[in-house]
């Protein structure tokens, strides 16, 4: 609005390169991981086939933190270097992160209903994941409500960093508030028969996460490059006239 435009590092849309191939590979690995997890591994003694949710729930929950780490890195980079690319990367990761958080919650609830008998329990990990989802929603809402790209980038970077700082505090406060969740899953707490399914899913979901963030990022770059070009053309016309 009133701010002067800075130099942008988003000039040309990205070349597609081999990302389509990567995407196909990522989706295929997700399918393979499901086949291993659902068909090959045995059902759980207590939970039966219900336990299969864990194969996607746990990897998605972990990769949600990967997304938020990218948001944090992109936000810090933007504030340090004023690189528009860093801002767009943070925004893309936040979108994917919000979807992952929503999926984590939804899958967790699907598992909780038959196991705990309730869709929702005010347990620390559930509750802090919901707070995380709301923080991500607020970040995306802020981006939607601010039009000036530079202002949007600065504000969302600071909001992103403050939100990331708050995540451990939220978790700690909610944990002190109450505790019910089962001990966090890790390969060491699982029977070896399940480990391979989990490992495969972790890798596959990570690949899909990277692909999704990249796709969103490439779209954002294309969009901004077009806007910047239109603006440059308008300015050029003004100078010429």
């Amino acid at each position: 609005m009133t701010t002067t435009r800075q130099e942008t590092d988003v000039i040309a849309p990205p070349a597609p390169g081999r990302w389509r191939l990567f995407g196909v590979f990522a989706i295929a690995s997700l399918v393979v991981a499901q086949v291993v997890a659902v068909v090959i591994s045995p059902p759980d003694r207590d939970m039966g086939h219900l336990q299969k949710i864990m194969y996607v729930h746990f990897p998605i929950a972990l990769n949600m933190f990967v997304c938020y780490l990218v948001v944090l890195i992109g936000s810090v980079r933007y504030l340090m270097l004023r690189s528009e690319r860093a801002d767009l990367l943070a925004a893309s990761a936040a979108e994917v992160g919000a979807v992952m958080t929503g999926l984590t919650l939804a899958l967790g609830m699907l598992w909780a209903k038959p196991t705990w008998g309730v869709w929702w329990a005010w347990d620390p990990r559930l509750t802090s994941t919901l707070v995380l989802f709301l923080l991500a929603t607020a970040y995306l809402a802020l981006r939607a409500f601010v039009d000036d790209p530079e202002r949007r980038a600065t504000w969302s970077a600071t909001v992103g960093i403050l939100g990331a700082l708050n995540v451990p505090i939220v978790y700690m406060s909610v944990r002190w508030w109450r505790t019910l969740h089962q001990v966090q899953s890790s390969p060491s707490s699982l029977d070896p028969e399940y480990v391979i399914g989990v490992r495969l899913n972790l890798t596959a979901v990570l690949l899909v996460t990277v692909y999704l963030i990249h796709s969103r990022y490439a779209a954002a770059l294309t969009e901004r490059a077009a806007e910047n070009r239109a603006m440059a053309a308008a300015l050029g016309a003004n100078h010429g006239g």
Partner: protein
Amino acid sequence: MSDSFAAEFARARAVAWKDLTTERRSKAGFNAVVSLALTILLLFGFALGPDSGAVRAAAPGALWLAALFASVLAFGRSFQVELDGGALEMLLLYPGSRRAIYVGKLLANLAFVGLLIAIVVVASMVLFQVTIPRAWPAVLGIIGLGAVGVTALGTFYAAIASRSRAREVLLPLLLFPMLVPVLLAAVQGTKALMAGDLMNEAGAWISLLAGFDLLFLLAGFLAFDAVIDA
């Protein structure tokens, strides 16, 4: 940072004084916000009562929610008043650090919210029939630390939200999830102290509040430059 700390603090004090003077001369804003807080308390009474036991147990939560909902309006106003008069640009043109503006606004908001919470506390003690707990100094400490935490983030996010579209929605949307630890610590700490703190948990909640306040006072102070200049 060419100026001395004293000069910066004088600037912050001038901003705070200006805000409080404006508020004192009109009083309309403060009266409206306090009336809203009292209305919310009353609605909590209707929603949870009339059983006096249930109402008393919910008093700390109702108190903090009423204070939170009402103070969001105060934070929004503190920047809205500047924008309406076209005064923010002027404020930014004055020499000195932007951080003096943050500290000044923070101090003014703290006075505003502190007084608001004091009124809400007295009102909720009367309405919800709460007796003064023996550990009242610790309860006052929790209220003070909670007010600082709410104001530190509230002032910072108001600087952002008041200059965006849909600011009425955006400020609470940004602020409330961030304040989850403050709300939990303040409510649980107060509840524990009112019940005699048998589990010795109030101390932990107070340290959590103090840590939260320190972290976000510092973060708000450091990030304010970038936010207000954008």
